[in-house]
C-alpha cells in the first residue's frame, strides 16, 4: 500500500484550486455556486483522509456536517439566483451592481 495522506491532500488541494478558479473566473452565478460545491467537496476529501490517517472518526463527523452546510448553502443560493434572474433577466454577476 503506497498511498499516503500527502496524496489525498494534494488531490483535495487541486480540487480546491479548481473550485476557486470556477468561482473567480466564471461569469455566471450558477457556475460560481458550483465552484463553492467543488471547494466544500475538496474539504470533505481532506477531512476523510485525515480521519483515516489518524484512525479517528472525528474527520468523518465533520465531513457529515459539511454536507448539511452544503445543502443549506445551495438551497438558499439557488433561491437567491432565481430571484435575481426574475428581476434582471440574467445570471451575470456583473449585473449585481444594479441589483442593490
Amino acid at each position: 500500500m503506497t498511498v499516503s495522506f500527502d496524496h489525498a491532500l494534494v488531490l483535495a488541494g487541486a480540487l480546491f484550486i479548481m473550485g476557486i478558479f470556477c468561482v473567480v473566473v466564471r461569469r455566471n452565478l450558477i457556475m460560481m455556486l458550483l465552484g463553492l460545491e467543488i471547494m466544500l467537496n475538496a474539504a470533505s476529501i481532506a477531512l476523510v483522509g485525515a480521519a483515516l490517517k489518524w484512525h479517528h472518526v472525528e474527520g468523518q463527523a465533520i465531513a457529515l456536517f459539511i454536507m448539511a452546510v452544503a445543502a443549506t448553502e445551495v438551497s438558499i443560493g439557488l433561491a437567491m439566483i432565481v430571484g435575481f434572474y426574475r428581476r434582471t433577466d440574467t445570471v451575470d454577476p456583473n449585473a449585481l451592481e444594479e441589483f442593490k
Partner: protein
Amino acid sequence: MTLYSILFYILAAVILASTAMAITRRDMVHAVIYLVVSFFGSALLFYLLGAPLLAALEIIIYAGAIMVLFLFIVMMIRIRPSAGRLLSRVQLLPAIVMSGLYVVVGAFMVTGDTAGRGDFQPAVAAPETLGQYVFQQHWVTVEIASLLLLVALVGAMIIGGKSPPESHPPVEEKS
C-alpha cells in the same frame, strides 16, 4: 503498486478530469453532469478511505439532491448561450497568480512536513460507529445542523416565493 493504490490513483484521475471538464463547460447542463461524475468518484474514494456511510450520503445528498436541484434551476431559467468570452479576462490573471502561490505553498507544506508521510493503514469506520460517535459527542451540532436546515427551508420559501414588485398590484383595503 497494490490494488488499493491503483484504485486511488484511478479515482483521483477521474475526479480531477471530470471536475476540470465541469468548470470549463459553456453549457451548464454538461457542467452539472460532469460534476455528478466527479461526485460519484468522490463517493468511491470515501469508500476506499474507509467511510461507507459518507460514501452513501455523498451519492444521496451531493449527486442525488444538490446536483438535481442545480439541474432543475438550469433548465428552469433557460439562459441564452452567451457569445462573449467564457472566462472574464480581468479576473483570469489574479486567479492564475493566486493559484500559483497556492501551489507553491502547498508544495512546500507537503514536502516539508513529514507528518503526512507513511502509508495509510486501512481501516473502516462502520456506519453505526460513526453514527454513535456523532450522536454522543456532537449532539449539539446535530441540533444546530437541523435548525440550519429548517432556517434554509424557510428562507428559500421566502426568497423564492417573492414575485417581482411590479406584478403585485397593491391590494385595496376593504373598509
